[in-house]
């Protein structure tokens, strides 16, 4: 004991203030956390109190936090409140001092390189090429603290640097043109049998037929090639399509392939119809959503890249003309894609030729779209020629890039390009290194344009361009401009921001607030929404698990539902900020954002149309709030079963901001029982009986239990489904397959939080969670901080976070307020 004490003193000696805490630590902690017992692998007698060392500091921060939360010592009553307060206060002071000193000396974090999304967007903006596609040339960025913007994870390597050079090269090549005029615009007006590759399709007549006067035309019987050919100009014919063209994927106008990449305008006349038995058409009662998809026609059976283009169009029952613009890559065709309609799956028992089985018609008929004609025009020419991208590179030197004076023009163009591309002024000294490169290429006989591109490439791969830096002084304007724009638009600062930085006005509180508000309202903010929710809420993996069709046949191939869920959550999150909702909407709101499909999914009164809009909820609805959105419940489940453990931990970490400790390595996951015999609660009971497990699981399992009423896609359920035990349900699913599952045990959503509060269902839980909006707001600030600065909230940031929360408290912690307050803090703006 004497030895231990003296050792402890030695470790503590470095910081006099800690000598005072030594007896308290000795008294309450060392019994378990010494060299012999080393509980939780922590030996305080050997842990140095040199807080300059970040690993030590982390360890002590964790100790501080657990003591503060009364988690340590394990029996809270073992430490008198006064001792606890003293110890927490002393540790806090020392930790703050050490961390703050480091921030003052080195800044909150080091340089961070652009991730691949940012690099691509920077180049798109610089080169005026909104469709530039170079992101995938760069390796996928590693994640840290859930985001792809975390400094410590964004390393540089040989592979990475080569990829930056390759990506810059590809971008510059895409920006440069050599043809005298823009590609010829192709115009086509398509009617009749040219609207589809053949008169029938794999999916048989139920999938598609040509009709005249609402009745199908029986080409099969006629087998008359001449008649079909003649019908290619017959404007009285409609092409009626009933199934998603996703498979068989041949629903394209006959023989059209984009010879040149670009945007193509599509105009078409169509109406929504219902197919009746005997292949006749009646007008639809509801609009039918459709979109276009582009892909290379690579054979009937193989698809590679497919892109939805031109947005979702609600085709109305009355004949109308629609117009949209789609982007086509070279060699692509486009196909009609009816969203929300099931595609029949080919059945080829024992490998016989495929046949299709359709489910019985829905009451009233099978919805579909009838197209009368379609016009294609494209590639749409740029506003000028050479296009603006070429101008960025070569100013007025034209297609041939013929300089009047090679040396002078090289220097001038380089300066011009760097001014357009750089995020802050570049010194003349630095410019000269690039001048030298261009000159060297010219001396070696390179063409003028090639030499210039070499110089540009070098700049776009240089440290100046690739790295974002921490604001380094109280007057550093440009780093703030870049931080703000990469935070809110995932790209470089626009002209206005750079202008304000130049004038040294950007750090003015009022202007900064105005600028942040302006960016939040801008189109570029959609990139923030997408990227932030892709990572924070893992929306990028919303299609990771397909629903298990044994248990959930109603979700078979329901891409429209998944797509709608994704839009719901992104729309909701956008509104959280733009409409400045209180932070409590993370868990609770009296409205949802829904469209026709989601209204059905959430058991709301029917609405029409694919557009996601705000819909009020009945008082007792379990929906409302991010917590119970389909997308959230889908990404926190797998395709077959839900797990309260996984969902609970997911919600506690991401929405509540109380991440559970990492699971012990040796314990396997609970294996779900899909026979239907055992509930997840039974299975978990085994798991949490153990005292060593229960301590942690009590922190997050209960939240997951309350969510058990939501199935793998967030649909409401009161009973689990199985395949063996329980009441058998059979039928034919939306794609024509027989299904058979059982309704097994009842869902029991009751639970008790670790603090003892009980809930009977998810609405009780929501009320409990919403009662602590400060924690929800704190979590948002933490998430915004790591996303915006690349460095998570540091110990010495905590006080400022609390003061930001104080400032936002009176208005109920509104989300945009939180965001704007962060932007104005020294966490964002750099050391004071």
């Amino acid at each position, binding site marked *: 004991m004497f030895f231990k004490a003296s050792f402890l003193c030695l470790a503590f000696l470095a910081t006099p203030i800690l000598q005072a805490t030594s007896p308290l630590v000795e008294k309450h902690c060392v019994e378990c956390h010494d060299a012999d017992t080393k509980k939780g692998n922590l030996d305080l007698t050997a842990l140095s109190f040199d807080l300059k060392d970040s690993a030590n500091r982390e360890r002590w921060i964790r100790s501080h936090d657990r003591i503060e939360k009364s988690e340590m010592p394990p029996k809270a009553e073992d430490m008198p409140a006064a001792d606890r307060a003293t110890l927490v206060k002393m540790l806090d002071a020392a930790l703050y001092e050490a961390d703050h000193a480091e921030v003052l000396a*080195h*800044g909150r*974090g*080091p*340089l961070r*390189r652009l991730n691949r999304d940012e690099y691509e967007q920077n180049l798109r903006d610089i080169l005026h090429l909104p469709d530039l596609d*170079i*992101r*995938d*040339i*760069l*390796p996928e960025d590693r994640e840290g603290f859930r985001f792809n913007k975390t400094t410590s994870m964004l390393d*540089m*390597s*040989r*592979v990475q*640097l*080569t*990829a930056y*050079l390759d990506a810059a090269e590809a971008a510059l090549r895409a920006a440069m043109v050599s043809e005298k005029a823009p590609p010829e615009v192709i115009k086509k007006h398509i009617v009749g049998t040219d609207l589809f590759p053949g008169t029938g399709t794999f999916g048989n007549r139920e999938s598609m037929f040509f009709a005249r006067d609402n009745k199908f035309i029986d080409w099969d019987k006629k087998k008359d090639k001449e008649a079909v050919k003649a019908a290619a100009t017959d404007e009285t014919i409609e092409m009626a399509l009933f199934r998603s063209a*996703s498979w068989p994927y041949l629903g394209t106008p006959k023989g059209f392939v984009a010879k040149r990449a670009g945007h193509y305008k599509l105009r078409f006349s169509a109406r929504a119809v219902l197919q009746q038995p005997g292949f006749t058409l009646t007008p639809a009662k509801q609009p039918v959503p459709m979109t276009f*998809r582009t892909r290379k026609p*690579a*054979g009937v*059976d*193989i*698809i*590679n*890249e*497919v*892109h*939805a283009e031109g947005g979702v169009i609600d085709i109305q029952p009355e004949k109308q003309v629609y117009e949209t613009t789609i982007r086509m890559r070279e060699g692509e065709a486009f196909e009609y894609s009816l969203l929300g309609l099931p595609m029949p799956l080919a059945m*080829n*028992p*024992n*490998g*016989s*030729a495929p046949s299709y089985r359709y489910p019985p018609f829905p009451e009233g008929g099978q919805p579909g779209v009838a197209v009368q004609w379609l016009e294609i025009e494209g590639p749409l020419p740029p506003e000028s020629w050479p296009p603006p991208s070429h101008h960025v590179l070569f100013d007025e030197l034209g297609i041939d890039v013929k300089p009047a004076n090679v040396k002078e023009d090289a220097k001038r163009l380089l300066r011009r390009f760097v001014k357009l591309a750089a995020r802050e002024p570049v010194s003349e000294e*630095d410019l000269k*290194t*690039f001048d030298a*490169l261009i000159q*060297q*290429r010219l001396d*070696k006989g*390179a063409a003028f344009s*090639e030499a210039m591109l*070499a110089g540009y*490439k*070098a700049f776009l*791969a*240089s*440290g*100046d361009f690739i*790295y974002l*830096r921490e604001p380094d002084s109280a007057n550093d304007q440009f780093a703030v401009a870049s931080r703000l724009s990469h935070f809110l638009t995932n790209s470089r600062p626009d002209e206005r921001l750079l202008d304000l930085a130049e004038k040294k006005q950007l750090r003015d509180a009022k202007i900064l607030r105005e600028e942040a508000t302006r960016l939040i309202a801008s189109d570029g903010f959609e990139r923030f929404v997408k990227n932030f929710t892709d990572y924070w809420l893992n929306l990028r993996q919303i*299609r*990771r698990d*397909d629903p298990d069709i044994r248990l959930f046949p109603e979700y078979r191939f329901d*891409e429209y539902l998944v797509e709608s869920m994704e839009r719901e959550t992104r729309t909701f999150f956008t509104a959280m900020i733009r409409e400045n909702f209180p932070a409590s909407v993370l868990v609770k709101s009296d409205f949802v954002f829904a469209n026709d499909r989601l209204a059905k999914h959430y058991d709301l009164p029917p609405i029409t149309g694919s557009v996601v809009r705000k819909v009020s909820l009945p008082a007792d609805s379990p929906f409302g709030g991010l917590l119970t959105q389909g997308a959230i419940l889908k990404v926190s489940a797998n395709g077959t079963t839900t797990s309260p453990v996984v969902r609970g931990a997911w919600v506690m970490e991401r929405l509540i901001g109380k991440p559970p400790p990492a699971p012990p390595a040796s314990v396997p996951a609970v294996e779900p029982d899909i026979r239907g015999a055992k509930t997840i609660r039974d299975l978990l009971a085994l798991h949490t009986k153990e005292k060593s497990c229960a301590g942690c699981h009590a922190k997050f399992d209960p939240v997951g239990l309350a969510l058990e009423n939501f199935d793998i896609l967030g649909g409401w359920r009161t009973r689990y489904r199985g395949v063996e035990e329980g009441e058998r349900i059979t039928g034919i699913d939306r794609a024509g397959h027989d299904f058979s599952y059982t309704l097994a045990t009842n869902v029991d959503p009751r639970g008790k939080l670790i603090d003892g509060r009980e809930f009977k269902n998810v609405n009780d839980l929501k009320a409990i969670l919403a009662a602590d909006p400060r924690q929800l707001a704190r979590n948002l600030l933490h998430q915004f901080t790591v996303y915006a600065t690349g460095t998570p909230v540091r110990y010495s940031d905590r006080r400022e976070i609390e003061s930001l929360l104080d400032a936002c408290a009176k208005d109920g912690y509104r989300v945009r307020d939180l965001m704007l307050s962060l932007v104005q803090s020294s966490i964002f703006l750099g050391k004071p």
Partner: protein
Amino acid sequence: MNAPHIAKSLSRRRFLQSAGVTLALPLLEYMTPVFGRAAQAKAPRRLLIISNNLGFLPKPFFPKTAGRDYELTQTLTPLSNVRGELSIFSGMSHPDVNGGHSAENCFLTAARGPTKSGFRNQISLDQFAVEKLGQLTRFPTLNLGVNIDKANRSLSWTRDGVLLPAEDSAPALFRRMFVQGDPEAVKKQLNRLDERGSILDTLMDHTKKLSRDLGSDDRSRLDQYLTSVREVEERLLTAREWELKAKPVTSVPEPEDIRDKKLIFDKLDLMLRMAQLAFESDSTRVITLMVDAFATPAFKIHDGEDTTEGYHGLSHHGQAPEKVKQLEHADREQMVILGKLIQSLASKREDGARLLDRTMVLFGSNMGDANKHDNTNLPIILAGGGLKHGQHHAFKTDNNAPLCNLFVTLLQQLGVETNAFGSSTGALAVL
């Protein structure tokens, strides 16, 4: 090791051709040692991956029991004399790689959901290996094909999901390996390398200036950058050396091409011999070969037996006995060819070691059961490479092990320091 040798052998071949003599390609024995190899301390490790995109009939392929004492099945019988040199795997697949034929794009990438909207392919095993290993040979990889449509079929994909075209002409491949390139093309490539070198020099200068007035954390970030610049420069030098170096010389004459798609297995045999030649001359260490059975019309199985219809049609046999029988024969014929390759690699020596022990050969498919368009339970055979062989490793048929776990093992055996690839959950411990 210079041009005259080549010229001589070429003219000899032309002479023989013009004299109307048909050249049978002899076994490739008298290879000139390749430069540079002696200098390399580590023994070269090689990998050949072959995929038939329609796979094999599962029943006659997979052994009934696992372990060392498995009984060779009907399809595998031709491998009896090399059974100790290879392992059979069952119960493996790529998670979420389904969609029938579309899965063939993912055999070496494991990119999930090839038929889903927004799908984009990922980096394939061979390209991943090369990215890590750097250019050890003239060709970082060779991608080959049999009966492929060049624009649309290959096992090899870049990181951004772009197909790397496969070579389907044996003579063209031969010329790439052994005939000096067109001086203009070499000059162009050298020029490209030179430009990149100059850019890197500029970046080096520029960054050094930048780092003068930075704090320690920032400086260490820039050090990372500078190290990267230096490493890329080193690799450029290597690439440049390869560009300048004369190609190896072979006594083997240029082969005749086989263009008749009907002769799919003759072509497979020829391309495998070319692959072996590439390894023997150390022209590359990694080769992929896609056998596009899907695009193959009625074909010759072996002398005296032709199929009655195209390969794809046959694959949807619907258990029709006459179709199943043809497929059984076709499957077995491929095992004959594989067995021949394994024996040939085993008979070759390199620095005293068997070439087979330095060469992993994987023969498999993206298709578990083409009749049903099933992409699970893929047929996989792995031979050579100095691994522990002789067993049938059976994983669960209803809950497959990720094929990428085997890929990680292959990568590690190649010398790539990684413990993850694609959808792997770890390396396969059984080898």
